[in-house]
């Protein structure tokens, strides 16, 4: 009985691992700000959402992403709904890429990811700057996009490794 229960817990953790990670990243913000690096920031949530929407779409529910976006808005202080919109656009882009891809390649995925986050951040910039009069630092945005793009390679490989070797999903990637 105990074994069955333990197996259930492990299965649940395996199943909900991306969602748990997404909520932790949204509530905690993995951007290493406590290291005190001036020109370093990246958006872990974008990488996570794009990767799992592309590779394992059933593990991240759209409603969870939507709620995570609302949480992110509250934590960051941006107008409520904007992060959800950006996350969902990212999901849409990943789903589109998944539909048109026959032979997956990390390079192509990353280039598509770069284009998507450029569009998303432009939308965000336009929305915050022109509608809500939030002043944004353009330079920091560029740094954020650049690091998010480069770290996509690292995290994509890390998630592949996790899915294949630790969580035991042979079909990932």
């Amino acid at each position, binding site marked *: 009985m105990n074994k069955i229960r333990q197996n259930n817990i492990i299965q649940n953790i395996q199943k909900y691992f991306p969602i748990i990670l997404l*909520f*932790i990243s949204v*509530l*905690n*913000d993995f*951007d290493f*700000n*406590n290291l*005190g690096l*001036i020109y370093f*920031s990246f958006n872990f949530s974008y990488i996570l959402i794009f990767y799992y929407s592309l590779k394992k*779409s*059933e593990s991240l*529910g*759209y*409603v969870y*992403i*939507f709620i995570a*976006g*609302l*949480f992110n808005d*509250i*934590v*960051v*202080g*941006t*107008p*409520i*709904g*904007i992060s*959800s*919109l950006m996350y*969902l*656009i990212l*999901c*849409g*882009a990943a*789903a*589109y890429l*998944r*539909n*048109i891809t026959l032979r997956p390649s990390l390079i192509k995925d990353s280039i598509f990811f770069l284009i998507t986050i450029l569009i998303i951040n432009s939308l*965000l910039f336009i*929305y*915050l700057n022109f*509608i*809500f009069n*939030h*002043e*944004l*630092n353009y330079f*920091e*945005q560029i*740094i*954020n996009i650049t690091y998010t793009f480069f770290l996509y390679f690292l995290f994509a490989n890390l998630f592949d490794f996790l899915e294949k070797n630790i969580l035991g999903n042979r079909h990932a990637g």
Partner: protein
Amino acid sequence: MEPSRDDFVIALRSAFLKKGTQQRFSLLSLIFFSIILLILGSFNFKAINYVKVVIKEIVYRSSFIVTGPENFLKNNYLIVSNHLKLYEENKKNIAELNYLRGKDLSQKINILENIKYKKLIDDYFIGENETFAKVLIDKQSPFLRSIIINKGSKNNIKLGMVVLDEGYLIGKIVEVNFFSSRVLLISDINSKIPVSLQPGDIQAIMSGKDKQEGVLQYVRDKSLSEINEEIQVLTSGAGGLFKNGIPIGTIAIDDEILVNNKEDKIVDFHRDFSQLKYVKVISFSKEKNILDLSSKEDSEILNEKIEETNQQQETLRILLAQKKIADDIRVKIQKENYFLRNERIRLKKESEFLRNKSDRLKNEILIIKRNNQKNKIEDDEIEFLKKNLIYGHKCRKNLINNLYKVGTPEYRKCVLKKGLKK
């Protein structure tokens, strides 16, 4: 072209409209829902605000729990690194302590003097509603630099209150919930704070730039580079939100930007915003007397004093009037006195002149008297001579008579009696 366009449409439709196995909503419907939320949020729709408040409370509390492990690691890392630096720090601290002990007394005197002068110009602010709060989340995203603290409207936190860390300004309250509040850090690009630069008392506006830096805008004085020492950046108190003189940061003089006299001057903040743990939330207001029992007594004493002062003032007014009258009289007497003195001098001169004149007249009389006497003698002589010519022979001694010898007094008497004998 037709088949590729079809593929594109099919792929898009599949991506945005198709629901997954366990999906209850399609992507497009959720996107529309987010847009509706955004639009209603921008119009401050009441229901959205309630939703926001509920989500905020949930998120802030759960964030505190979720950030626990990271904070634990961070704190441990800090403890270890502090421990490793302990010996050097101790040596430095002892030296600094000795130096600061000497400075302490003079600083106390300066503070008291400062308070006294500020009270004189009615610019003395006292801290009110001082609350210490724990930092729940220190979110420093590229979009907004803010922290969440565990005190809200329940603890009398209000919008616009000042947030300090060990006396240094770190931000202000921009959002208040029941149990938590959001602090906009001064490093945020939207934060605009009126500052004054010392020495020189140059006024400027400071805005956030990076995680540890601010930038000066609208610096009135262009001659900032002429100051040859480290510039201290303090709140100026303009606008009334912040008390003046709260330290913020410094501007180094060897800064390239400063030397080149560019418009952007970089301010290094005193505090490290990524290491905030506990902060002080405070509001400042002008000093006022609270009307309790002791202050009532004080006010009565004050009233008595005022009355006494009024009486004294009245007495003083009367005395002043009396003094004025006395002064008038004194002036009159002085004038009279002056006139009399002049008169006395004039009369003295006149009497002297008259005395001289009388002396002269006396002399003249004396001379006349002498002359008269002389004339009389001469007249007598003339009469004697005349009578001598006529009657001399009757009195003169000769051989035949025995009369008087010429020149003797008997002879003279005889002549004057016209030669008659006794």
